[in-house]
Structure formats: C-alpha cells, structure tokens
C-alpha cells in the first residue's frame, strides 16, 4: 500500500498515479509488479499461450461482445484489467496459422476474421455460435411510477472500492445539501467543496443541483444510450476527465487571407484531457464519423488507466449534434452535471472521490 503524500489516499502498490488526486506516486513502488501492458520479452511469451487457448475456446463457443476482464459492475474495482491476459483480439500475433477457407491466406490462429479478405472464420468452425450474452447491467428502470412515500426511503448508497455497499446517506423530502461542511461520510473528502451539491424531489423524481462546486457532480450514463455533448461538456472515463469543445476558429484577417493549416476534415469538435483548472493535455479533433475511446481499442487510447475498458465509449455526430455513448464499459462513462439533472432510481452518482447509487 502506498499512501499518497498529497491527499493521503491509500493506493495499491502497482499504481503509478494516486487514485484519489492523480498525483504521481513514488516510482520504486512500481518495481515489484509492473502495470504496463505490452511488455516486451518474458511476460509477452507467458501471455501468449493462454491467450491463444482462450481464442480457440472463443471460436468454438459463444463469442463474447464484452471482452473486458474487469468483472465488477459499476464500481471502482481494482484495476485488475491490466494484469489479466489480453483478450484474444489483442493477443500478440499467433505464430500458428491456418488457411482461410475463402481466400486461402495464412491467417494467425487467434484471428476471428481473415486479414486478407475479411472472411468471418467463426462461420466455418461454429456455424451457430449462439448469440452473444452481454453481461447483465444495472440499468436505470423507468421512474414514472415511483411509489408514494419514495422520498421517505430515498438515500445515497456509498459504493466501496471493492464493489460492496457501504454507508447510506438519507435524503429528506425537502432539499438536502451535501458537501464537506455537512459532515458524515462527506467530511473527509478533500475533493468535495464545502457545499457541493443539493438533492431534492420534483414530481417524485430525484434532482441533483451542482452548487458551483469545484469538481462537479457526475452521473453515469446508460450504456448504448447516446447523450448530447455541448461546448464545454465534461465527462469522465476511468480516472480521466475529458472536455468536449465545439469547433472554434480565430477571425481571419480583414484582407481576406485565411489561416493555413492541416486539412480540416469537417471536424465536429475536439476532446481534451483536463489536467488543471484551465489547463488541458492531449487533445484530439473528432471527425464526422466519430471516434472510439478505450484502453486498448479505439482511436484514442488510455493504456495506463486500468479503470478504462478495452473499448469504452464513442463520440459521434448526427445531424449537426455531437453525442457520447458508453459502449458497454465495465466502470461506466460519467457526465458532469451542468447545473441540474434528474437522477433516475438506481443511477450512479460520482461526487468527490466517492461513488453513490441513488435509491428511492
């Protein structure tokens, strides 16, 4: 266990960055167990055989859509994903090949599709592999029929790092203010503002209002349900805070000269990594056909963040609007509430360093 010198949070030995505040942890703690993925040399070879075995197993039986090894739903589990063998699609290229039944090319054993003609190799071996069985998810049920007196039982359930439920915080029928100044489970969270958020009920629905807090209130979005991004929208995947910015450009000069630059392929905006109040790190423009974000697959990768799923979310545009969609990540995609938002029953809410589930 490494105790962060900045925020005193306990971190596992192999973490490079503090789970709580993102500060870099002392390096010697990395020695015993490396977290990095494509480890040249030894680890790679020890990984390969099981990955291949897993691949052939997957070919014979049901293909899995969800390839994420992280098993615990909607919590902030240990970033075990990195330590696990790579999913078959990402395993190192198999040395053993077999001919494609369609074009005859020698295809590595762990490929599902021929890399030359694109033929689906699954279709040969297992004619009916069965439908993919997506992992069961906690989706927010409709809240239209909230029972009478729901407000009496309304509470925020703390989800602990290991996925189990912790303390509950009751929400009254009126307005309930939450923050470092309100004590209890919130008092020790340095990432909560003294007055952070306010919960209230409106027509039997829970509403959260961000009290202009420093770090905001984040709500987990439903998988496969696109939500619109606006200029300045902030969202969170794994430990990463990302900001979406609509396209903007400086005014060209009065003499009719245009700014020169790289081809502008109709970018619909860009996403930037938030690394300070007004500082961003790496950024990527979003082409009209969209981008995928993930730890190992996609256009924008987070190879060092074990809380990001292999393939996590997607941003795309439709009819002039830009949307963010969680594509079935294990830990979810959270969107920062701009002023106010409904909180449907069962929704996960992230405030400060703590994750809650709203129950009512």
């Amino acid at each position, binding site marked *: 266990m490494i105790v962060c010198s900045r925020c005193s949070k306990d971190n596992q030995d192999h973490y490079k960055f503090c789970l709580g505040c993102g500060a870099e942890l002392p390096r010697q703690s990395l020695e015993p167990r490396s977290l990095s993925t494509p480890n040249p040399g030894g680890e790679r070879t020890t990984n390969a055989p099981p990955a291949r075995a897993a691949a052939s197993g997957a070919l014979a039986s049901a293909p899995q859509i969800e390839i994420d090894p992280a098993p615990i739903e909607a919590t902030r589990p240990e970033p075990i994903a990195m330590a696990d063998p790579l999913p078959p699609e990402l395993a190192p290229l198999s040395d053993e090949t077999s001919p494609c039944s369609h074009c005859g090319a020698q295809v590595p054993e762990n490929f599902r599709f021929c890399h030359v003609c694109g033929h689906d190799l699954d279709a040969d071996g297992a004619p009916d592999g069965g439908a993919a069985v997506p992992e069961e998810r906690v989706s927010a049920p409709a809240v239209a029929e909230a029972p009478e007196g729901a407000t009496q039982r309304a509470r925020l359930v703390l989800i602990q790092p290991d996925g189990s439920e912790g303390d509950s915080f009751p929400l009254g029928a009126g307005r309930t203010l939450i923050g470092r100044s309100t004590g209890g489970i919130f008092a020790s969270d340095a*990432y909560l503002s003294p007055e952070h958020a306010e919960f209230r009920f409106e027509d039997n629905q829970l509403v959260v209002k961000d009290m202009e807090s420093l770090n905001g209130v984040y709500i987990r979005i439903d998988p496969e349900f696109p939500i619109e991004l606006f200029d300045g929208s902030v969202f969170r995947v794994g430990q990463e805070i990302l900001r979406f910015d609509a396209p903007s450009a*400086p005014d060209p000069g009065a003499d009719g*000269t245009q*700014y*020169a*630059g790289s081809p502008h392929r109709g*970018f619909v905006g860009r996403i930037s990594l938030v*690394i300070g109040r007004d500082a961003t790190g790496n950024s990527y*423009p979003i082409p009209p056909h969209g981008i995928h974000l993930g730890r190992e697959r996609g256009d924008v990768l987070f190879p060092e963040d074990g809380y990001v799923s292999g393939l996590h979310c997607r941003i795309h545009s439709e009819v002039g609007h830009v949307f963010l969609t969680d594509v079935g990540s294990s830990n979810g995609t959270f969107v920062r509430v701009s002023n106010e938002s409904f909180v449907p029953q069962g929704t996960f809410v992230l405030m400060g360093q703590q994750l809650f589930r709203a129950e009512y």
Partner: protein
Amino acid sequence: MEQARNYVCTECASAVPSGHKFCGACGGPVPAEAQTLETQFFGALQMPGKARLIVVRGDEAMGEGLSYLLQATEHVAGRDADQIPFPSDNWLSPTHANFLYRGEKLVVRDEGSLNGVYIRLRGSSPIQIGDHFMCGQHLFRVDATPKDSSGPEPDQTYFYSSPRRPSAFRVTQVLEGGMDGIVCCALEQTVEIGREDCDINFPDDVYLSPRHAKVEMTGESLKLIDENSQNGTYVRIRGERELGHGDYLFLGRNLVRVEVTA
C-alpha cells in the same frame, strides 16, 4: 563519315586534344574559349550571379513550373504582388514575402504575413516554443507545457484532474481556419510525427513518410529533426533567412524552388 572528336586547328585543320593551348602540328594558337570548356548551367548564360524561383507546386491558375528571374534588388511575392503574384491562393497575404539581395546573398524576408514562409529543413534545426513547422499536409506548433493549475482552493478543496505525467513541451496540430487539432504532450523527450507508429499518426496521409520528423529536447533546447522523409519537413522562418541553391520554400500552398547560379 564521322565528326572530328576534338577541336580542329583553324590554321592546319589538325585535331587538337583538349587542354592544349597551341596546335601541335602548326603551332597555331587555340582560342581561350576553346581551352576552358566547363559545363555551365543554362540560367547562368542569361543572368550570371542572379537567382530564380521556380514554382514546383502551385494551383492551376498560377501555372506550375512558372519561374521568376530575380534580377532586381527586391522582389515582392503575395496575393496582390506585382512581381511574384499568387492571386488565387488565399493562404498568402497581399504582401507576403520579399526576395532581396544583401550583397551577393539572396535572402527571403517575411513581410509580416499571416501564414508565414516555410523553408525545407536540411537535416535538423534548432526550434523554439511558438515555432511552426510542416510535415506532409500538416501544420504544427511547438508549445510550452502550461503551468500546473491544480492546487487546492482557498477553502482547501482539491482539484480533481486526470492523471498527469511530466512533460517538457507539446506539439499542437493547427487546422486550416486556425483551430487547434491534435495536441500531443511529450513523454520522454520527443514527439514523433509520421504515418504510423509515431506519437502523432496520420495513417491516411500519402505525403507523410512512415516516420517523418520529430521534435526532440536535449537539456533545455529543442530541435526539429527530419527523419529523411521523402517530402521533407518545413520550418517557418523568423524574419529573414538566407537562401541557397536548391532550397525549397512554401508560400501558402505554393512550393517554390530556389536556384542560385553564382
């Protein structure tokens, strides 16, 4: 029937091998022109000591292959320029650059243009924060790492930011129209640009080499290095720059080659 292979003496019609000053048969003098036979460049016959610009790539209205003899002392290039006009390229300012002689030397001076003048790198060049450079069709700027602004508030609330890694500098892609594109913060000490396997990749840009160029920090200083790319790396000049034979320049979308015959 065949042609005599050497200079033929005008006195006695004997063959005189090259390098001889007098005819070996009759002693007749060989004229000076015939003694110093050096192959000369065509341009030199017309304008010895002067330079010319050749538009290697430009839009059709300009006519690729057009060449400008620089016989005056100053030659202004720009969208509205009289001497070297590029009327259809709106990446050029009305008065964009000036090609002038400083003594024997040809120099180019950026006349405060919006988009600047870019010269092809020979190998590598020092580069500074704020400088622009081009690879393939892409334009980049070298930026400083912003100051850490993630300290706690006066009320002791800590700012939650994404995990940060130390970075010495960053490279920002500039899109046409002026919007920023990709931003890549340097890890280790370099940012490499290319078609694949680099820090900034453009897999579909046919003008880029697989590994095209990199910005590298050694100690406190930054260097832009062209990795033997096919189409070269161009760096924006600051103010004025001396030109030599074979230099390539980008003025807006126009690529011009410099020929100096002195």
